[in-house]
């Protein structure tokens, strides 16, 4: 049986192939075919091919394409080769070479010059226009239109359209729609001029447009938009571009009830169903007391939103309506998200503005998309794009001091710790971090940390300060990477902040930096507090790495190595230095031979035995070993659940410690 199916499938496939290959043959008809079909009264759009010139062959390609399109409308498209099948009537004259013929009811219905039927769109549009005859009318003056409106009043609605030029895709879209809806609506085609003026279209270049004239409804009370006095039908303009799909949707939408009543909360109203799925919903709320007034308001608004959005009136008396009283309207946009947005309106115009504005935006977007590459005006760097998007907001620099070549020394001398951000205005990362930096400055100010002086240096302006050569009075080397944060203490060389460029990390670093490094610890209480208490209430949730130095006497060489290492660790790791008496006690307890270092990594429970490191001959080596010892072990599977923040830390330590990480080590993390 499967073989059968396969065979059938294959057959269909191959049939499909031959079908395509024979396309050009398929539209060719013999004289016999022609007469037979003519007699049957079928609609035929035929071209009699006498001689093939380049223009003609181009037309033939288009003719072929239109065959499929017109098939749906019951029109047979084809050509007859005069050389093979000389049909007297149509093959004799040379001028027939430039003419295509439409046959209907067994006779020649009309003919088209090839100048008007030059491609698929124009063929379909012209043929349908010919077939539709009276169903689509031309109107030239406003008086004609008025007459049409009068005639249609109470009977039919009118679809009035202006097509920029005939034979275009827009023309075709209109004709295709007219074919479908021709019996339901009166279609009118205008060609510009006075009628357009009457419709108050005066933009240039004029785009193809469609208006819906509500002539069927009798009650003028429902039409507050246009003055009731006029005998004209109220009209709704289609705001989207003229295409078959848009026109179809638009007509469908106008068929929808003006206002629908709902008794549930807007959030539980389902998004509109086909064919309205692309239409926004607007919800207004109604109180039992004002139900008539509310309905009037809703109707008024609905009229104004016709073709734009659907209006739903939510009755508040229903217990299912949960929307807070402070909101009097809500809306849901299609596509973007099906979330309902609530708002408080003061006038109907607000709603209207909401949709017309959004539409304009859409239009603009469309416009950009149309222009060959939409990426041209976009930044593809996420940081730069974010900064660029935010460009309207000027940074409030009040909480930071701007350092210049002139005030640098005076400002730096003022405080025990100056944190300076060196930035370039055109560097997106700099500007991005600048706002975080300012936030940190504000936060420090708020928590009354007054021993830290937060400063910024615009290196685009104070180039001589940022590029100050070594040997000049500044305590840092020329800045060649932006942004750079330097921690400057009077009479010391500056310390580079090498942490994450986030406010949180910087804040933490600054707070930790305020602690001495190392902290001299002379009593057990001090040690306990050093090991267990947060260095500052602001850092209560943060668990820093801690290091204790066990060094006997001040004269021991290990001391300078350790203090130097502690200095570089300042801000990242808390370091403590035990003084003489305690050293022996702790050394005995942990079987350490001073000079040594005890490590209390943040990831390990502080009550667990610390790791022990002997003090090396150089602080650089000691630092490397401290970094690698502070690394948390990692196992497979751990990565996937590892919080981002931990990974930063992990990476940081991994890179600093230059340690190869073996995934698969036993997980020692506390459970």
């Amino acid at each position, binding site marked *: 049986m499967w073989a059968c199916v396969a065979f059938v499938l294959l057959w269909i496939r191959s049939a499909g192939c031959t079908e395509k290959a024979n396309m050009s043959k398929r539209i060719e008809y013999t004289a016999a075919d022609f007469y037979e079909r003519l007699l049957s009264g079928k609609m035929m759009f035929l071209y009699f091919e006498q001689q093939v010139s380049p223009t003609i062959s181009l037309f033939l390609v288009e003719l072929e394409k239109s065959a499929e399109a017109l098939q749906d409308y019951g029109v047979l498209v084809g050509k007859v080769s005069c050389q093979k099948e000389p049909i007297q009537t149509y093959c004799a004259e040379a001028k027939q070479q430039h003419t295509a013929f439409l046959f209907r009811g067994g006779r020649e219905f009309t003919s088209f010059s090839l100048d008007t039927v030059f491609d698929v769109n124009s063929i379909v549009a012209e043929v349908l226009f010919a077939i539709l005859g009276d169903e689509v009318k031309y109107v030239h003056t406003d008086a004609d239109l008025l007459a049409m409106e009068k005639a249609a009043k109470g009977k039919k609605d009118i679809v009035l359209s202006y097509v920029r030029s005939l034979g275009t895709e827009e023309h075709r879209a209109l004709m295709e729609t007219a074919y479908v809806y021709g019996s339901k609506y009166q279609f009118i085609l205008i060609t510009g001029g006075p009628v357009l003026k009457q419709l108050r279209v005066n933009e240039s270049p004029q785009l193809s447009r469609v208006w819906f004239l509500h002539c069927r409804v009798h009650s003028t009370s429902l039409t507050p938009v246009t003055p009731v006095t006029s005998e004209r039908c109220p009209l709704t303009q289609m705001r989207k571009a003229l295409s078959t799909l848009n026109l179809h949707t638009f007509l469908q939408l106008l068929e929808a009830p003006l206002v629908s009543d709902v008794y549930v909360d807007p959030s539980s109203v389902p998004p509109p169903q086909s064919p309205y799925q692309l239409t926004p919903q607007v919800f207004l709320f109604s109180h039992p007391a004002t139900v008539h007034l509310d309905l009037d308001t809703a109707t008024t608004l609905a009229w104004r939103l016709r073709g734009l959005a659907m209006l739903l009136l939510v009755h508040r008396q229903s217990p299912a309506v949960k929307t807070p009283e402070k909101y009097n309207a809500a809306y849901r946009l299609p596509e973007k998200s099906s979330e309902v947005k609530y708002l408080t309106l003061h006038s109907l115009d607000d709603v209207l503005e909401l949709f017309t504005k959004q539409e304009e935006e859409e239009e603009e977007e469309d416009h950009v998309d149309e222009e060959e590459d939409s990426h041209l005006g*976009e930044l593809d760097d*996420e940081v730069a*794009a974010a900064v660029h998007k935010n460009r309207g907001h000027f940074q409030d620099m009040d909480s930071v001091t701007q350092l210049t070549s002139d005030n640098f020394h005076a400002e730096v001398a003022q405080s025990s710790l100056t944190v300076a951000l060196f930035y370039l205005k055109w560097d997106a990362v700099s500007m991005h971090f600048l706002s975080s930096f300012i936030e940190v400055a504000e936060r420090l100010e708020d928590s009354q940390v007054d021993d830290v002086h937060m400063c910024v240096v615009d290196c685009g302006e104070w180039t001589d300060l940022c590029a100050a050569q070594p040997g000049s009075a500044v305590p840092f080397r020329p800045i060649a990477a932006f942004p750079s944060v330097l921690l400057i203490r009077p009479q010391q060389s500056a310390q580079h902040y090498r942490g994450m460029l986030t406010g949180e990390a910087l804040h933490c670093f600054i707070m930790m930096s305020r602690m001495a490094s190392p902290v001299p610890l002379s009593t057990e209480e001090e040690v306990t507090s050093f090991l267990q208490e947060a260095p500052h209430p602001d850092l209560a949730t943060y668990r820093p790495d801690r290091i204790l130095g066990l060094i006997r006497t001040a004269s021991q060489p290990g001391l300078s190595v350790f203090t130097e290492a502690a200095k570089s660790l300042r801000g990242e790791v808390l370091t403590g230095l035990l003084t003489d008496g305690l050293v022996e006690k702790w050394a005995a307890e942990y079987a350490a031979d001073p000079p040594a270092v005890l490590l209390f990594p943040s990831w390990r429970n502080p009550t667990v035995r610390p790791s022990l490191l002997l003090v090396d001959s150089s602080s650089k080596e000691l630092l490397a070993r401290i970094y690698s010892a502070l690394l948390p072990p990692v196992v497979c599977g751990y990565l996937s659940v590892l919080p981002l923040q931990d990974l930063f830390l992990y990476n940081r330590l991994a890179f600093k410690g230059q340690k190869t990480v073996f995934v698969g080590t036993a997980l020692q993390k506390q459970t």
Partner: protein
Amino acid sequence: MEPNLLCFILSTLFGLALTSFNQHLHNGTRHYNYCVLGAGPAGLQMGFFLSKANRDYIILERNSGPGSFFNKYPRHRKLISINKIHTGRWNREFNLRHDWNSLLSDNPDLLFRKVSGEFYPPADAFPLYLSTFVRELGLKVQYGVDVGRVRSVQSAAGRSYILTDQHAADYSCSVLLVATGLWVPQEVEFAGSDLVEGYESISTNPDDYKGQAVLILGKGNSAFETAQSILGRASRVHMLSSSPVRLAWQTHYVGDLRAVNNELLDTYQLKSLDGLVEAHLEDIVIAKQEERGRRRSGGKKGETRAKLFLGLQKFRQAGDERNTSDVSPEELPGHHIDNFPLRRPYDRVIRCLGFRFNFSIFDSSARPPHSHNAKGRLPGVTAWYEGKNTPGLFLLGTASHSRDYRGSAGGFVHGFRYTARAVHRLLEHRYHGNPWPSTRLMTTQLTSWILKRVGEASGPYQMFEVLGDVILLQGSHCEYIEEFLLQALPRFASLSGHEVSSHGLIVVVMQYGKKKIDYLGRGRAETDWTKAWKSNFLHPVLYYYDSLPTEQDMKMRPHGWPLPRPKAIHHMVEDFLTEWDGPLSHIQPLRRFLEHCVQTDLRAFSAETCFRSALTHRRSQLSCQQGYLNQRGVQRYGQLTRGVYEAGLVPAEQVSAGTSTGASPAFPNYLAPAGASVSSGLKLDL
């Protein structure tokens, strides 16, 4: 290593030579490593660099003070070099772009504004400024030494130059830096040239020209300056030279006629008895004749003044060797052409043809050749300002202008202060083994750094198309060398002491557009970055080479180009404010160009994006490597624009938009996506 070693040997030899010389002061000859001839702006500028580097140098000056040229010139005592004090900026480097008089020093207050606040300062302020410069920096200047002879001697220790002054005292110099300027008036020989007064000696009192008809030879700034001063007194001012007047604001060359001097153009075109005429000066004849049959109405005490007639060589009777002061009426052009423009006689003819270099003091062993351009008035020099055929002899200042004559600003203080610095850097490398100063940058910082330089740097801005920044690409890092001499690029490695790696190099140059347009007309400015290559105003251009161009490449470069055709070129669109920091118009196209050159994604990413890419790619983006993975990630910011990262594939056109190439190459895709091997389907032949 090889060149370094060579340098070392050279400098050791050099040092040995110096010490041996210093030890023996034979025949009262004093020896210096560096002699600077002339204490004008160029000489003092070089003096500062030598003094800063603690070199053994002397500046020799024949007058009793610095900048003596400016004691006399310009004759009408107004400098036309801009002294713009109020720029609205604090950036000292940027402010130098608009300060045409100051010399470079480490002292930020030692600027010309100290002596004058005027936009066009009085000429007397300049020597004053120079003496302040000498005093404050303690430069070693020896005044009153009039060097009359310069010769070179070749010894085992190398070549040196012997300068002999007016007292026959000798100065021996290993390196001679000639900064004597141009001060010998340029003259043209023609029949009757002896009847002509020179700019150097004319009266500057306008009243002396009352009612006189004056013919000025020359159409430069000195000619127009003279014309301008007498416009209100003279009856007629005509100006004659071979070429039509060139306006500085059209040619972008500050040596052409500046608008500050061009009042005569107004009076000419507003039909006010003045005018400009073109003729070859070699072809003219000036003849003196008593005006016949008329008496000057204003003649005092019956004094008659001889009138000067302008004739043409072709109307002179053949073989006529008579005194030019006596010309028959038949020999005057007016006799043959009744509407000859200059048929009316003049009271004065003034020569304002500029100045030329004084070649006469140079012995044939030390004489630089005449330049090919500038009518041979200037010495010919190499691309690094060493005299051709005279190794160890460099030309500085106005005398070095033959390299960029009628082009850039090398003949003017605001230009040659930078070329002097370049020459000094070259000397430091050649004789002392110090490579050119450079800045090592992370490649991710390169965009910002280039923006910083094009936004503020004064050297490449003033010396456009002559000096440019060279960036040596080295993978994740690069070496940034400022203000190298573009024409010497083929010798970059040997002159600067920096090696070019296989990653290639980028040269950042400031350029004007090459198209002649209506400089005040509509559409003169290009604002669309995708058409940046059409920029007309000064704008940065980046040239990318995968290896150093050769001398041959340099010789064969397209006409008007400062550099040979590169592998890829990028124009940053001209900017009205000369601030190239627009995220869309300047930064992003630049970044994309650099990405193409370094074959790496140079975008900045937030920590989240880096995290994601670190988990999905073998190698992360450079900015993540140098940032996030080095624990310097950037926080994500509100809602970042949707899927910028995902929108990695960018149409090629935009990336190469600033790149003037017809065939848009299939460029980054997005470049080297992390972990992927670099695609080599990249060919950017122009």
